[in-house]
């Protein structure tokens, strides 16, 4: 879903860069509060994992593939500020070293695959941190996981439309429907994989996931 170079107009990519730059600055400022020495390695390996997972394109429809976004998963495991920092790092390395995603489109890509899905993931983080996440947690995670991908995908189409990069014979609604439809399938995989990875990491490394909240949970005073 990385927007390649040359598809966004200067006002659009510059605007997106300002928004994502602001979100990244705010994340760095907020991150210290969410930080804990045990979260550093988790942050690092989650970044490496998302980079790796994005290399694995799986078939969705005939002739079409998709890969994990990862922002939604990071929002759940690390919260929005740390998740956004991780996602921005992954996307920057992809754009600068691997020609994956345009350099000038980095702000737009960070917003659609980082800021927005990380915030949606952070919204369900509380459900997962309860002692026994139930069926409702899985259901909400699946639905929001699909939403995160579809919102990012349709957001990309909106940016392309604003950049005058869609043929004029195509209606915006048609383009949004096509892009949203393809990505609904990818979103199902995103939701399921996110839930599975969160479950695995919570089992293995609950304290690193909780971070500074660990003390509250240990006292039984879960927020």
């Amino acid at each position, binding site marked *: *879903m*990385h*927007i*390649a*170079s*040359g*598809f966004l*107009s*200067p006002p659009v990519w510059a605007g997106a860069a300002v928004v994502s730059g602001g979100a990244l600055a705010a994340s*760095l400022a907020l991150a*210290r509060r969410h*930080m*804990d*020495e*045990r*979260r*550093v*390695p988790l*942050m*690092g*390996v*989650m*970044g*490496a*994992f*998302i*980079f*790796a997972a994005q*290399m*694995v*394109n*799986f078939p969705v429809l005939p*002739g*079409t*593939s*998709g890969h994990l976004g990862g922002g939604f998963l990071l929002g759940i495991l690390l919260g929005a500020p740390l998740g956004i*920092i991780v996602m921005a*790092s992954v996307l920057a*390395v992809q754009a*600068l*070293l*691997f*020609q*994956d995603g*345009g*350099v*000038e489109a980095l702000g737009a890509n960070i917003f659609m695959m980082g800021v927005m899905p990380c915030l949606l993931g952070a919204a369900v983080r509380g459900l997962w941190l309860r002692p026994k996440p139930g069926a409702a947690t899985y259901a909400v995670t699946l639905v929001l996981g699909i939403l995160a991908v579809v919102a990012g*995908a349709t957001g990309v189409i909106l940016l*392309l439309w604003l950049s*005058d*990069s869609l*043929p004029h*014979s195509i209606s915006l609604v048609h*383009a949004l429907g*096509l*892009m949203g439809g*393809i990505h609904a399938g990818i979103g199902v995989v995103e939701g399921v994989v996110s839930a599975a990875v969160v479950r695995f990491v919570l089992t293995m490394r609950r*304290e690193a996931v909780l971070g500074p909240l*660990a*003390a509250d949970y240990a006292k039984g005073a879960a927020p």
Partner: protein
Amino acid sequence: MTAYNRRTLIVGLAIAVLIAGVVSYFASANPDGLEKAQEELGVAGPAHQAVEVPAVAFQEYNLKWLGEGFWSNAIAGVVGALVVLAILLGVGRLLARGKARTPGASSN
């Protein structure tokens, strides 16, 4: 480094290396959702000035000098994952500086 952190690193990195180095080779080569949508919508190519980033070492997810292949893909994937890891360990360490481990929870 504590045993807890060392184990997080080793296990996490092993999983990432396995995916980036091995599993990724078997990825679908079909266009991704955005590329497919652009194709179907008849987007011919970039409408604006494209910015070329020089391929320093990698041509997409392959080593520049090796072309496409299992090892080329594996080296590119593992190096990329390690670069991301290194950046984040650096940023994370800066952010965690002066912060002790949260008391109240046990760790091994």
